[in-house]
């Protein structure tokens, strides 16, 4: 099917001359995404730009007028469950996904839907933590979505018709794609989920026009490859190391950067001796070939599910007196890191929440392990000091913002697990530390409007980190935990949310609350901003509703 589609595309272009003309005026050529910072009225890729700073230079909404923000429209989700989709906005049209695998093209000014495409995942699709999809990529005249049954689908941006649909992974072995793809040059790059099911993770690139696979790089090296000896026996065949969050890209170095998830089985590290590379690592892959250029492992032989699926945030800065191309990373393991993204060299790492699984980092950034006795709490807990929630870096303030979970710990229990293809491969279990037996504790998402677990079992603390020192300049605490991402603007506003459903505008310089509104449902993705006809909008998904705000009378 793949090759016949490709053939028909080629013959179509050859016969119909204006089809070639259409290709040449494709709406979103690579150069637009490359220079996304020059057109802040659009939000062209998952993290707003290849450097993944989630910073927009738009400044119409500012500290003086943010109190006047007015709801413009709301789009209701048609299905239930955490809505983690990140909208893409291109020239006044928003592309947003809905569970399990639908894409909608929406008028960004009114919220009215132009078209909706629905992919029905195979019945045996298996994801550990919710049937999520975090959004699309756009390139040329196509919209790309990964699916829960591990396929990659290309849609016509104008009418939503599928143009090609290829397999990324074997659904029978519990491979899935939940991340928004990353479009780089002429390729669409995705990683696979399935770290709780004994997959062998990888990142793969596909020709944007045809869907033909261009390269595929495993996150666990096979026999004969460097670092294969960080695994014993056949552990590498089902060692997890998924990639389920969109990476970033440095066009000058031609490197794509990805965060790699946990080794499997999750909680029984003794069952898989060795460092288990490249689980829990940052990896740098050549954008054209997928070749691994460097790696940095945050948590060797992880026993705590400390996925390194955070967004690699890139910035060029004078770092302690020297111009550096850095990568900033608040890791699930409780440490904040600054790496040199040219070489992968460790520059700085400090804990940003209570950490007791390790007593510190050595000069190379390798943690000194201090495993807790059986039955004793480990800090941070299983969901981590932070997780996949997208951070923001503001080049204006020089600060890195992210959602941390404070005072949150879990007690782990390791047990031997047998790998059975397509089944959960966890190696034990965990429970959240609670102040009274049977007391409600935080889970993966918010499930009802009453907070009966109380902040004693963990709560949100938004951190504004100074990458020069590795210390928080300020923090903003919430009663409940937060899975919300961050957005900063050219007017030094920080937009974010949390499980309580408040949508906040905070002063990015000092952490003062400037404005908030109770939207009533958990905010589990980052807000985005864009501009149409001279009006700046900010959109956020809360619960089952996507709400868009702007100033009146613009």
């Amino acid at each position, binding site marked *: 099917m793949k090759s016949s589609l490709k053939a028909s595309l080629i013959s179509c272009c050859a016969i119909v001359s204006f089809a070639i003309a259409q290709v040449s005026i494709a709406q979103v050529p690579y150069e637009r995404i490359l220079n996304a910072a020059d057109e802040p009225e659009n939000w062209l890729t998952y993290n707003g730009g290849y450097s993944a700073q989630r910073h927009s230079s738009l400044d119409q909404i500012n500290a003086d007028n943010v109190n006047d923000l007015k709801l413009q429209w709301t789009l209701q989700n048609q*299905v*239930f*469950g955490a809505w983690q989709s990140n909208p893409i906005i291109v020239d006044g049209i928003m592309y947003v996904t809905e*569970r*399990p695998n639908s894409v909608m093209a929406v008028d960004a000014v009114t919220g009215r839907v132009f078209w909706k495409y629905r992919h029905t995942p195979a*019945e045996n*699709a*298996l*994801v*550990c*933590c919710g*049937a999520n999809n975090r959004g699309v990529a756009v390139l040329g005249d196509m919209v790309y979505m990964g699916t*829960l049954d591990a396929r990659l689908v290309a849609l016509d941006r104008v009418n939503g018709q599928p143009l090609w649909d290829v397999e990324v992974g074997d659904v029978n072995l519990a491979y899935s794609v939940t991340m928004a793809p990353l479009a780089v040059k002429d390729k669409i790059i995705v990683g696979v989920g399935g770290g*709780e099911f004994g997959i062998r993770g990888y990142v793969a690139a596909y020709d944007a026009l045809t869907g033909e696979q261009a390269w595929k790089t495993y996150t666990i090296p096979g026999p004969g490859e460097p670092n294969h000896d960080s695994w014993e026996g056949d552990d590498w065949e089902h060692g997890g190391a998924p990639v389920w969050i969109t990476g970033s890209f440095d066009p000058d170095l031609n490197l794509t950067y990805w965060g790699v998830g946990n080794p499997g089985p999750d909680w029984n590290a003794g069952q898989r001796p060795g460092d288990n590379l490249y689980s829990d690592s940052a990896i740098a892959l050549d954008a054209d070939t997928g070749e691994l250029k460097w790696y940095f492992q945050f948590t060797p032989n992880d026993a705590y599910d400390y996925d390194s699926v955070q967004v690699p945030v890139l910035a060029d800065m004078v770092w302690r007196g020297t111009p550096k191309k850095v990568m900033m990373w608040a890791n699930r393991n409780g440490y904040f890191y600054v790496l040199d993204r040219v070489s992968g060299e460790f520059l700085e790492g400090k804990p940003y929440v209570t950490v007791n699984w390790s007593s510190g980092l050595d000069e190379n950034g390798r943690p000194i392990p201090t495993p807790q006795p059986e*039955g004793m*709490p480990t800090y941070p807990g299983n969901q981590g000091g932070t997780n996949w929630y997208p951070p923001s870096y503001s080049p204006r303030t020089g600060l890195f913002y992210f959602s941390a979970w404070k*005072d949150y710990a879990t*007690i782990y*229990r390791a047990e031997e*697990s047998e790998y059975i293809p*397509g*089944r*959960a491969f*966890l190696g*034990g*279990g965990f*429970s*959240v*530390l*609670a*102040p*009274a*037996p*049977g*007391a*409600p*504790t935080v*889970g*993966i*998402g918010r*499930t*009802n409007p*009453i*907070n*009966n*677990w*109380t*902040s*004693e*079992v963990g709560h949100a603390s938004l951190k504004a980190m100074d990458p020069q020192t590795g210390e928080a300049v300020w923090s*903003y*605490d*919430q*009663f*409940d935990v937060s899975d919300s991402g961050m957005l900063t603007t050219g007017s030094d506003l920080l937009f974010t949310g*949390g499980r*309580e459903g*408040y949508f906040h505008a905070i002063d990015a310089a000092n*952490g003062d*609350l400037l404005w908030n509104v109770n939207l009533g449902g958990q905010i589990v993705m980052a807000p985005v901003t864009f501009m149409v006809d001279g009006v700046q909008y900010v959109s956020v998904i809360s619960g089952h509703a996507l709400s868009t705000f702007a100033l009146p009378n613009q």
Partner: protein
Amino acid sequence: MKPFIAKSGRGKILALPIFFAALFASSQLLAQETGDHQYTTEAIQAGSRVYTQQCALCHGPQGAAVDGVDLRRGQFRTATSDDDLRTVISQGAAEGRMPAFNLAATEMDGVIAYIRAGFDPDGVAVRIGDPARGQTLFEGKGECADCHRVNGVGPRTAPDLSDIGAIRTPASLQRNLLDPATALLPINRPVRLVTRNEETIVGRRLNEDTYTVQVIDSNERLRSLRKSDLVTYEISDAPSKQPTTLSSEEVADVIGYLLTLRGL
């Protein structure tokens, strides 16, 4: 404005020396003899392991982490019978939010047994006495009814116990009577609030977020307060009740009565 104003009780709560983890709390206790279910202890224990490995990640250790579903209490979206549960587990539901699980027959039986047993893998060696005597003690000598409401009778200041037998295990009820300080759920801790208008409010929290707190006060009024309007917000680390002075036989009777309270 920064959240967490003047919350003087908070540090004390976190300093409590003894912490509990729900999954392990009952592991050292002996099998329950009363056996009001049809499942074998072996099946329940096997199901406990399956649950931890396959289900707990989404449903949570208490089984209530998915909206509208409380496995421990037997609240499901669509299922009623064991066969319904089998269908949901083996085929999935809710448009893929609940994935299909390929479990062996014994694993399936076990996990259903564990759910039906209220997540009590080992049962507990709690003496369960006479419900009728227990009700008399509850309403009289035990002084329970002075604060707790049952089936529309009694004050509302303490939690309503009309369905307590469905949501708590015997061990939990016993702990609550004998050692309330370690058993009291954090949300039920007594609070004392003083507003800028110098009004003092004593009560129990119903809900809370970063900027507000909802309480039922000592006059049984539902109050929602903005934290920015409070000059004092204290959460006590001491429960409003003392360990019971009832004899162990009387405690068993009260537990027997509480277990009959299953809600509507």
